[in-house]
């Protein structure tokens, strides 16, 4: 499923947070922007899997671990910050980078960022996403909404959401999934609403697949895209528990 492709929002010209690279339309987004997009994509994946048949536990665990890795790294950077509800109208959307930009091959960029070359001559697609060796980061004293203090109960809403997802995976009460999302606007979970605005996701001819990724930049965002993003924004708010 290429549902994440409906997250197209940020126009390529916006030069937000491009560190030292040229801000041309084809520029490689900054590492932090890429990382944030990967985080958002992962959260959407974790949420959507609850709507299907019993979720694939292995897949959920791997995605959750990816999210934790990003969270840990952002905590070490000090970039793990809160999303205030009023500002949420813009902030989460600003973070969402068009997926084609996120996944764009380094060779296509016209910016001046040199891409680190892999040994075999194949530049990594998102070279900036290499993770520094892991080290437990001390919590920032200016605790954001996400972090809270170190005690488990008051850990940020994000961690709680991850935990809740795993609890529902094993919970035997039939109402558990509904409880998790009880206060969410139910229209978000209308699969049709979420999946509209997606560009040809299941073409199976040769030349589909990755080629579709590369060509996604050319298709204009549709109006239904925007309504999806409003609902996604809502879901992000829920996860933040603001």
């Amino acid at each position, binding site marked *: *499923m*290429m549902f*994440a*492709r409906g997250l197209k929002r940020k126009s390529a010209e916006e030069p937000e947070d491009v560190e030292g690279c040229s801000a041309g339309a084809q520029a490689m987004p900054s590492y932090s922007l890429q*990382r944030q997009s*990967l985080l958002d*994509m992962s959260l959407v*994946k974790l949420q959507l899997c609850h709507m299907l*048949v*019993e979720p*694939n*536990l*292995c*897949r959920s*665990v*791997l995605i*959750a*671990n*990816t999210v*934790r*890795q*990003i969270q840990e790294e952002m905590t070490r950077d000090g970039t793990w910050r809160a999303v205030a509800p009023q500002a949420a109208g813009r902030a989460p959307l600003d973070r969402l980078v068009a*997926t084609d930009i*996120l*996944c764009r*091959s380094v060779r296509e960029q016209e910016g001046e960022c040199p891409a680190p070359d*892999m*040994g*075999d*001559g*194949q*530049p*990594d*697609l*998102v070279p900036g*996403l*290499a*993770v520094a*060796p892991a080290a437990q980061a001390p919590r920032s004293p200016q605790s954001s909404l996400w972090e809270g203090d170190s005690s488990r109960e008051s850990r940020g809403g994000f961690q709680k959401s*991850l*935990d809740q997802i*795993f*609890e529902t*995976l*094993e*919970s*035997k*009460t*039939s109402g558990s999934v509904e409880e998790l999302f009880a206060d969410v606007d139910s229209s978000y979970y209308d699969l049709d609403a979420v999946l509209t605005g997606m560009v040809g996701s*299941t073409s*199976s*001819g*040769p*030349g*589909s*697949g*990755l*080629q579709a*990724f*590369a060509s996604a930049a050319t298709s204009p965002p549709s109006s239904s895209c925007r309504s999806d993003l409003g609902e996604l924004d809502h879901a992000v708010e829920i996860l933040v528990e603001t």
Partner: protein
Amino acid sequence: MRGFWNKVFNLEVVCCPCLLKADIISTVEFNHSGELLATGDKGGRVVIFQQEQENKIQSHSRGEYNVYSTFQSHEPEFDYLKSLEIEEKINKIRWLPQKNAAQFLLSTNDKTIKLWKISERDKRPEGYNLKEEDGRYRDPTTVTTLRVPVFRPMDLMVEASPRRIFANAHTYHINSISINSDYETYLSADDLRINLWHLEITDRSFNIVDIKPANMEELTEVITAAEFHPNSCNTFVYSSSKGTIRLCDMRASALCDRHSKLFEEPEDPSNRSFFSEIISSISDVKFSHSGRYMMTRDYLSVKIWDLNMENRPVETYQVHEYLRSKLCSLYENDCIFDKFECCWNGSDSVVMTGSYNNFFRMFDRNTKRDITLEASRENNKPRTVLKPRKVCASGKRKKDEISVDSLDFNKKILHTAWHPKENIIAVATTNNLYIFQDKVN
């Protein structure tokens, strides 16, 4: 066997490729003699093919495989506690070695394992004394003589009947079953637990591995595959989503939570990314026939491990390294979670696994040569020799090469099987089963 690999791998298409059209194939397995080939599909059906006996006159090829038996193994169920459907998709089939005229196999979906008996009937009794031919009882007063029924030949009928149903032992989805070399017990593994069963006993199983954390919040690793050692009936391995393999000895304790050996390769720091863990997740583990090695499949490679060396594999083969730069896209479309299987040939000299675009790969462990072949109807008529394929990773694409961006990621070969004795392979695309054999001159 030596002639097979001296040249380019001459693989000849034997069967018509449109054998199975209905449903998505989810597992493929030869029996111990190789005469039978079982497939399971998403609809819960099992289809068994039988190799026809060699035609002595036309000895230029081995027998072809024809449909032998078809039966519905599992039906969809509903879990009322969780309000979720239990899929009927067959996750694995494993054959028991043949002990008498009948064949036995285990088939499993996410929750329930079944032992099936497949038996032939090619004669029937005729000439009953008390019954007419159609079964109605004769009027006793008309019976004046004694005659005994005689068995007469009839058209072959193959019957499948469920002999045991092993249910209600798995909270999570079963990913593996493996029959012990004692042929009396078998294991079944789900995401978090492994159970040991006796083939005769359905109301009880022993839990031998449990990695479920007390707090599900702390869950970071799941079991992805498990298999018994082919010769040591006390030894089994299980692989995890973090790229580790644990070898356990059931003699050590009842609950094998402490491994005897832990196989793990240290990570290459230059390749580190947010996707490192996902691509290290092991999708399949298979012992060699000899029992000395085991093979694991992760997203990009196949690794051969010597059971005596835990800190790194002895051989590593890249299946489709050109995908390493595309991991973000493959994460987005979920292809990065595809679970490819792998298999050994009968002599453990060649290993095989699938890839995308209906490609599959073989690696010769002795010559270190490898080949990419394609299973597709357009390119293959029966008796044609498969042409090797090549993917162009970067730079100028040569003639006949396929560029990475042209690969069809919806066409994936997840399941392959190799005949235990001969160079015959079964390759499953999404909807079709292909059977190839090497060219016999």
